[in-house]
């Protein structure tokens, strides 16, 4: 057996992928991190206090992992789901009945719930350890935007099953936009935006209309939410996560006493 492994490790294929021996010496451990695309997110050495589980609670890492699960399961769901008012609901039902091992929807939904929780806990931890203080102020801000995007991802996804729960939860949520100051038709100040008795802001052109592509949650809203959920927000979140991780390193790694 050992011979077989030794043979494989000595082969050109293996050595073209891994440019170091087994990571049990300082040199190879360093190389393992430096020469691996995924691992090189990390520094070679880390503060012992920074990787303590009771310090970080691993919640940033968990959030990222859940984001990856969401990406993979979401991609699989996209093969089966069509975002139109006639088909959406049927497709969701069909997922359970016709797709073998049909737990993709469950995985996607429960992970999404967990991701909201883990991102809150991550923020809580970062606050309690004072890790937003200099030099990490900017990364905290990137984090706040990530928090908003995480909630929006969840919110846009909530509509897609196109059942009663979905449509009415989104109705309750987006009704608020009606009351946006100045820009919503039931918001304070909207009446000021008028010319010669002609109101510019009304139910047919205010922010809520823009969000829903209509006066109520209908087919236009479904398509809009679908595109935002599957393309727009994930791309934004992915870019910001890349910046977030890069900044964690540039700001001196996971925080610790100065």
């Amino acid at each position, binding site marked *: 057996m050992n011979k077989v492994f030794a043979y494989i490790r000595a082969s050109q294929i293996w050595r073209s992928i891994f440019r170091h021996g087994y990571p049990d010496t300082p040199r190879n*451990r360093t190389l393992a991190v430096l020469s691996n695309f995924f691992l090189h997110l990390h520094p070679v050495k880390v503060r012992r*206090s920074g*990787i303590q589980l009771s*310090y970080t609670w691993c919640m940033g890492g968990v959030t990222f992992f859940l984001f990856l699960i969401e990406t993979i399961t979401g991609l699989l769901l996209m093969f089966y789901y069509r975002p139109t008012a006639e088909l959406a*609901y049927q497709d969701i039902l069909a997922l359970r009945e016709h797709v073998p091992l049909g737990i993709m929807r469950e995985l996607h939904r429960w992970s999404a719930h967990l991701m909201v929780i883990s991102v809150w806990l991550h923020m809580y931890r970062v606050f309690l350890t004072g890790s937003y*203080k200099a030099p990490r102020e900017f990364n905290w801000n990137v984090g706040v935007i990530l928090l908003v995007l995480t909630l929006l991802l969840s919110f846009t996804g909530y509509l897609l099953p196109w*059942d009663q*729960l979905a449509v009415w939860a989104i109705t309750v949520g987006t009704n*608020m936009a009606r009351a946006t100051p100045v820009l919503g038709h039931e918001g304070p100040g909207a009446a000021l935006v008028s010319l010669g008795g002609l109101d510019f802001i009304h139910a047919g052109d205010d922010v809520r209309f823009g969000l829903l592509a209509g006066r109520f949650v209908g087919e236009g809203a479904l398509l809009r939410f679908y595109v935002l959920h599957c393309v727009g927000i994930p791309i934004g979140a992915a870019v910001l996560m890349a910046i977030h991780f890069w900044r964690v390193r540039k700001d001196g790694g996971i925080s610790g006493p100065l």
Partner: protein
Amino acid sequence: MGQQIKDAVDWLTSPTLYFLEFTLAIIFILRFRAFFTKKWVIAVFFAVSTAFMVFAFGDTNFNRIITKPDNVPIIILLATVVFFSWLSLRRAYLNDEATKRGEPTQEAALGKQRVFTWPDLVYIELIFMVIFTAVLIIWSIEITAPIEEPAASARTPNPSKAPWYFLGLQELLVYFDPWLAGVVLPSFIVVGLMAIPYIDVNPKGNGYYTFEERKFAISFFWVGFLLFWVSFVILGTFLRGPNWSFFGPFEYWDLHKLEPMVNVDLATYFWTGLLGQARPEQPLIRELPGIILLLGYFAVIPKLLESRLMKSLFEGNRQHIIRYHVMMHLLLWFGLIPIKMLLRWTVSLKYIVGIPEWFFNI
């Protein structure tokens, strides 16, 4: 006996008491942290909670809300938030004690050592990925994602709830109009969070747990996050039923339960109650008392507290005066929430300023 416990719990969770209990709990826990951070305290807490859940599970009404698939995460949220609050306070307490004795904090002691990412960090990540994958797969097999009847815009379900993570905002709708609860206050939450690193100039407590060195900051976040966010999510999920009326955990969700709504505007109190005359027609004159009160609230309070807070939070350094005013402004907006809640509960106040003609109600 069982029924008495249920009645007591229903009574204890009514919105006013619920809020009061949470507030007192936070004050007590932070004040007596030496006691509350002991290991057996959290063990007893979780044991009692589990026992209560087992007891309550047999109740039809309780069972109906708690076993909704989408409510499982709320239980997880509650358990993890309690546990991590305890853990962080414990570490803070131990660190503070060490500092008092002149010893280094746990982070300072460990932080000097550096370890290799491979394997010390990589194996933690691997274990976490395996655990989470396993848990998620089991969870997904056990509990099917819910799907209700197809969308029908003509049939409004009662209650209509926003997704659970926005229930805190929906709860605010009880006290505020949508333009505040749904637009202005959430915007201030985001802006406020982003402003935190630029307002908090206290250099201490960077990279380790502590309470003593950041009393104001930590207490503030506990109140904001635990009381006004997490506890509201729980209230909105489990204790709000049809028509957004309040229901105790053991109460039947009766569609016809009506809560009397006889809320009165400040203007009515002022013109009719105090001066004994009809309310003026002109909205600006009618609402003058409320407007003056609010302007005073935002203009006078920062001035009144300036010298004291500048000293305790910014060491009296005048350079930080803009930070101080931004902070106060955000805090005063935040303060509107408990103030409005208290006024509603005590004197049934509807609006401090109420100009429905312009959708401008506060």
